[in-house]
């Protein structure tokens, strides 16, 4: 389960709309509890509307950008607990490609953005430890 409040969810949606028709992406900074549940404290947007090379490499978040995000999280005494990206004109369901390139434990929040740059559905996914598939993860709105 991941706790993501309305304000954070809105930030992700707005980011997806701003980058449409390109993909947006960012990190979710927060904390894990003992049971592995995640609470997002901050949405950390990463640059997008990518240069050609990044598209070629199919990267959403490059190593240097990740390191910056990780350092930011540590400076707040927090961890990276997942990431988010948008699927322009496509349902918010992870692709086979997403699966092949996923990390365990983390939340993968995907927002679908459709015609007219309107953000639609937003869901969160977590990969199984055996890498066989993604399971949808419950999003708690917190308090």
């Amino acid at each position, binding site marked *: 389960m991941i706790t993501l409040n309305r304000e954070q969810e809105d930030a992700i949606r707005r980011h997806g709309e701003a980058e449409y028709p390109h993909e947006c992406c960012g990190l979710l900074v927060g904390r894990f509890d003992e049971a592995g549940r995640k609470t997002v404290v901050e949405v950390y947007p990463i640059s997008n509307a990518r240069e*050609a090379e990044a598209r070629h490499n199919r990267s959403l978040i490059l190593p240097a950008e990740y390191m910056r995000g990780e350092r930011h999280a540590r400076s707040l005494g927090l961890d990276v607990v997942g990431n988010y990206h948008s699927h322009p004109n496509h349902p918010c369901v992870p692709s086979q490609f997403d699966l092949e*390139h996923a990390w365990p*434990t983390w939340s993968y929040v995907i927002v679908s953005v459709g015609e007219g740059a309107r953000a639609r559905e937003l869901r969160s996914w977590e990969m199984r430890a055996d890498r066989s598939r993604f399971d949808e993860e419950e999003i708690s709105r917190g308090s």
Partner: protein
Amino acid sequence: MPVTISIPTALRQYAGGTSEIEVEATTAGEALERLTTTHAELRKHLYNDQNALRNFVNVYVNDEDIRHAQGQDTPVKDGDTVMIIPAIAGGATTEQEAVAANAPALSNEEIARYSRHLIMPEVGMEGQRRLKAASVLMIGTGGLGAPLGMYLAAAGVGRLGIVDFDVVDESNLQRQIIHGTSDVGRPKVDSARDRLSNINPHVHIETHETRLSSENALGLFRDYDVIVDGTDNFPTRYLVNDACVLAGKPNVYGSIFRFEGQASVFWAAADNGRGACYRCLYPEPPPPGLVPSCAEGGVLGVLPGIVGAIQANETIKLILGGDSQTLVNRLLLFDAWKMRFRELKLRKDPACPVCGEHATIKELIDYEEFCGLKPPASQEEQSDAREAKSEEITATELKRRLDRGDDIQIIDVREPNEYEIAHIPGTTLIPLGQITNRMSEIDPARETVVHCKMGGRSAKAIESLRRAGFEGRLINLAGGITAWANDVDPSVPKY
């Protein structure tokens, strides 16, 4: 003091919940090996089934990506930190991802054909499917394009575009091994297509029998992933470069002259926009005539074979991705005579007019004019006037006058080895480079005809002599010894 491995949050539960683990190791690869031996669960997230690091796993030693060092062999010493940094990939909708998701499967026939690729983890099924999904546009099917096209076709690149407007000439066969003797006179794209399809019928070949121009370049480039420049002239080289920068495509570059070759990958968008382009290396073309073409200067036949094969190698690595190191920001220099490779580091020029921070070139320009091969309209008259000053004679007319017994001295300004191939009887050989120093050997009282292979160098020789103060009458043999062989004496070999 051992090496510290820093574990990303996503993997901590597989590493006993800690963020840092210390191991004894001498290389980055060994450190990871130790780590995954003690924490076996980590292994499947870091390595794929072929035991290679997953392509979205980045390993840094003290802030440096090991891909930019010696890969898994990068040495580590006590106190170093090895960081596992996730590159986060995903998404379902960009063009490339659609390609990856729909990357075509391989038939059993293809699996048999590509088995030597498939058994290497660096290629494997995934890499071979990427090759099949990829498209490459080769500019030119000459010396460089020949091995390039043949290796790319053999490697199983799914779609190969070839651009050439030329026909196969006998003088091509010494190095352009994609064409054969029976192809002489055929359009090069047709000859190349036949050869490539014969090598690998699984490859889809697209021929573009046209001269690459500012008008058609962007349209042609749009449909291909990688562009490979196998041309031999400056205007096309700058055109390919600028069009690649504007289209955001990698330009796999090669050039050859006599015994020397160069290769690089010019890709302005690479490395987060830090890749150099051809203009970062050579902002301006050389003055026309300074750098002779292969037709004038010659080229060892094997040289384009080596340089073109390097271009094929780099193209395949760009398609495979992974942790290979390409020639981005590196210029490879090869000397076939001394058998020596050297390498120069390239840097993006922040002031580059096409890929720099404040680029001024936003669309393709007139590259003939840029390279000084076509004078701007205002200068045209002047240059016409200059040309009018140099007197010319045709081969037939010269023959007629010699037969009539006119007193004419003929100066051959080619190189001695060219003279050995063929010469006009009764001529004096003074190579262009020596012409002013040996001016005294030319009698100004007699009428003088100057010739070379095609008429270009002899025109330069006349200009140099005039500038040096030679006062006699100088006449250029139009079309050089080639015209003589065509129109006067067919027994003289053409080269």
